[in-house]
């Protein structure tokens, strides 16, 4: 059963990855990558059970955390770029 879950996760990873490759645009990719991050959290959890050592779930917690930080960073920093480039795009040439 656990192996089936793993297979489903891997297939979903590939599907999400295709979306990340195809885009279009930044937001589709961010969405795909955010979803992909959740998949990796699940991957770590399931892999732990699959290979008989489930005590390393700390890694899953960390993945969830950094995934969130990265998403927030993308949104913050892309938005900010527009502000700056509007204000002084001309000067910098």
């Amino acid at each position, binding site marked *: 059963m656990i192996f089936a879950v793993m297979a489903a996760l891997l297939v979903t990873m590939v599907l999400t990855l295709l979306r990340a490759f195809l885009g279009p645009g930044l937001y589709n990719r961010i969405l795909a990558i955010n979803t992909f991050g959740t998949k990796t959290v699940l991957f770590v959890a399931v892999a732990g059970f699959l290979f008989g050592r489930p005590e390393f779930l700390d890694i899953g917690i960390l993945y969830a955390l950094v995934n969130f930080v990265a998403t927030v960073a993308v949104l913050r920093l892309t938005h900010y770029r527009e502000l700056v480039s509007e204000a002084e795009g001309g000067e*910098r040439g």
Partner: protein
Amino acid sequence: MIASHYVYWTFFALMLIGLYVVISHGNLLKKLIGLSLFQVGVFLFYIGLGKQDGGSAPIISDDVETYSHPLPQVLILTAIVVGVATLAVGLALAVRIFEAYGTVEEDEVLERDSTERLAERDRERAAEHDGGGS
């Protein structure tokens, strides 16, 4: 051969992809991204060396028999840290280059430097000429 070495070959392929990006792309940031890819390939190669079939993470526990080797993991921990330190310095330099030149494309930076040098030389020539004439 394929069954036992495909893993190494994939790691090598990752290194080569990174190396290609570093060498042939002119954008400084893309170069740094390529550099990280290159390094990640090497990290994976090291970790691959320590893996043992049916092994488990080298955290000693009563009900586990075989462990993968801890030494490559320690080395790569160090190497990852060195890699991110280099990346941070490279990015800081890229920001400063952008502020100084207005671009992060290597070719454009070089072009701007050489036009500056040519302009300087012209000025000098002109000054010399004036000095000789008067």
